């Protein structure tokens, strides 16, 4: 038998990974990225003549566990109709047994690529609020994301903010039917990874267990999630991830866009929001996501925030920053009056 060169090996791996779309309405156009469970391609829906993103499972799970999880992701997405959550179009099984689903093809950038040092703090915080809006919507519908991180946020070409990769989503109730005969899907999601085994880490940095399931991303997952404390996970676990994400957003603000005058306040108030959101004890965090979003909104509006008790000087500074225009206007007016009076009585 002919020797397979390294190049041939790479080609074979690539060839075997390419989904066979025979019998479907889709035509493969190219590969986009790898997610926790599979690969995302761009394909053309030949019936509707539009581009779609097609997510295909890495391989057919012999026990169907991964396949069920991908289908569950599609079902979770399908029931979350929100402008900040990418809509699902179709779900099915390829002729080689791999499960796939198609969704809107979003052209844009991942948040971690999009955020440049020159982007202003206000711009970053507005993006953050839109992320909160989408995630809060999911929470209201009983869904936890569990893998919120910059790589899972997309900024579309029209400026839309989309929360992606719901493969680890946890359903707080079981309205989306789990696979027949399967154990509670959450019971298999949280398995401890093998220490030092890099095969457990996906391309996106998420930790993958031996079954190929993702349990979260170090640095963004809450302590209770890292412990595998599935039973006690609630919205506060996502709040932890969002706190880490907020910290990422404000960490690289350049001095040019963030004058030194405001830096002190940014450090104290925004850091306080991050600290409260990422408190090790869930009880010390914001109870709900809207509460956290409200604090960020209040910060943007120059109002006091719940997470930080400010000093008298800080209150004055904030008051000045908020009403700077009127204060300067009144100051200018008073100065003019003083000058007029001064020259009149001279």
């Amino acid at each position: 038998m002919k020797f397979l060169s390294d190049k041939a090996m790479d080609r074979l791996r690539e060839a075997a990974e390419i989904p066979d779309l025979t019998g479907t309405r889709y035509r493969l156009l190219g590969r986009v990225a790898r997610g926790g469970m599979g690969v995302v391609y761009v394909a053309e829906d030949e019936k509707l003549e539009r581009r779609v993103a097609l997510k295909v499972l890495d391989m057919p799970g012999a026990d169907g566990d991964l396949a069920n999880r991908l289908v569950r992701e599609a079902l979770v997405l399908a029931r979350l109709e929100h402008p900040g959550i990418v809509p699902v179009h179709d779900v099915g099984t390829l002729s080689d047994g791999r499960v796939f689903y198609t969704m809107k093809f979003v052209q844009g950038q991942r948040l971690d690529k999009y955020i440049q040092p020159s982007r202003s703090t206000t711009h970053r915080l507005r993006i953050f609020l839109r992320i909160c809006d989408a995630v809060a919507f999911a929470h209201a519908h009983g869904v936890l994301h569990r893998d919120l991180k910059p790589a899972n946020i997309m900024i579309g070409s029209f400026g839309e903010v989309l929360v992606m990769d719901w493969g680890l989503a946890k359903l707080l109730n079981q309205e989306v039917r789990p696979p027949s005969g399967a154990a509670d899907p959450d019971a298999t999601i949280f398995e401890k990874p093998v220490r030092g085994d890099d095969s457990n880490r996906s391309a996106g940095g998420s930790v993958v267990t031996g079954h190929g399931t993702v349990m979260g991303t170090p640095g963004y997952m809450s302590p209770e999630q890292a412990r595998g404390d599935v039973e006690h996970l609630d919205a506060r676990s996502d709040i932890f991830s969002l706190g880490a994400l907020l910290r990422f957003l404000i960490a690289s603000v350049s001095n040019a866009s963030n004058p030194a005058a405001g830096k002190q306040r940014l450090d104290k108030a925004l850091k306080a929001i991050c600290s409260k959101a990422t408190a090790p004890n869930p009880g010390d965090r914001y109870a709900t996501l809207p509460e956290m979003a409200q604090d960020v909104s209040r910060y943007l509006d120059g109002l006091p925030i719940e997470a930080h008790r400010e000093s008298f000087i800080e209150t004055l500074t904030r008051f000045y920053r908020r009403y700077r225009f009127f204060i300067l206007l009144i100051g200018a007016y008073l100065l003019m009056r003083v000058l007029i009076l001064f020259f009149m009585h001279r």
Partner: protein
Amino acid sequence: MNEEELGTGGDRFPPTRRSVIEAVASIDAEERARALESLCAAYWKPIYKYIRLRWDRPADEAQDLTQGFFVGVLERELLEKFEPKKARLRTYLRVCVDSFVSNEDKADRRQKRGGDIPHVALDFAAAEEELGNAVMDPARIVSPESLDEFFEKEWLRSLFTLAVEDLHQLCLARGRERTFHLFEAYDLEDHDKISYDQLAKEYAISVSDVNNALAWARREFRRISLERLHELCGSEEEFQREARAAFGSHEK
């Protein structure tokens, strides 16, 4: 459509080949022999090359040790002692090879072996030639990680080689020789990829025929590889991980 229909439906990969670990425990002698043959077919070359590199043995000694190792697999019932929960079969076998070579050194009882190993043609000359082709930085060769990586790569090469061979046989059996030639020309040749158009002209067929033939060959290659892989894993969990490593996690 619900999860049940999707997750378990269709012609999902059927694990038709039993795991060698299960098969060696079978009471059926034929099944046991088949399992050992499969194991030997997939592992002899990586093991031979590993002994040559890791233990720096000359070709004749490495040949003897490779054969001796597979005799040892039978005699010492190494597969029966394997615990899938503790390690991958590949890692376990590599550790067994290390231990075997080390013990052989201590006992200094090298002897020519043969006869009792499974009926698999061990083409050591070809393996030696391949070893000459192996591109490996000599500076890295001493690190255990690089040897592990080397062993894994060679094992995967061996698996893919067997799968390509199976695919060839399948094509011959189904009268689809042209399909295999197309697959060979497009996916196995070392030169830069030729286009579907070029292949279509060369074989005087339409581009869509090339497309269909390649899609079929790749699907079958994938199926056969996964079947072989399933056979060579100790548990479903190991199979999932190995399959992801083999097909799912290469990033360019």
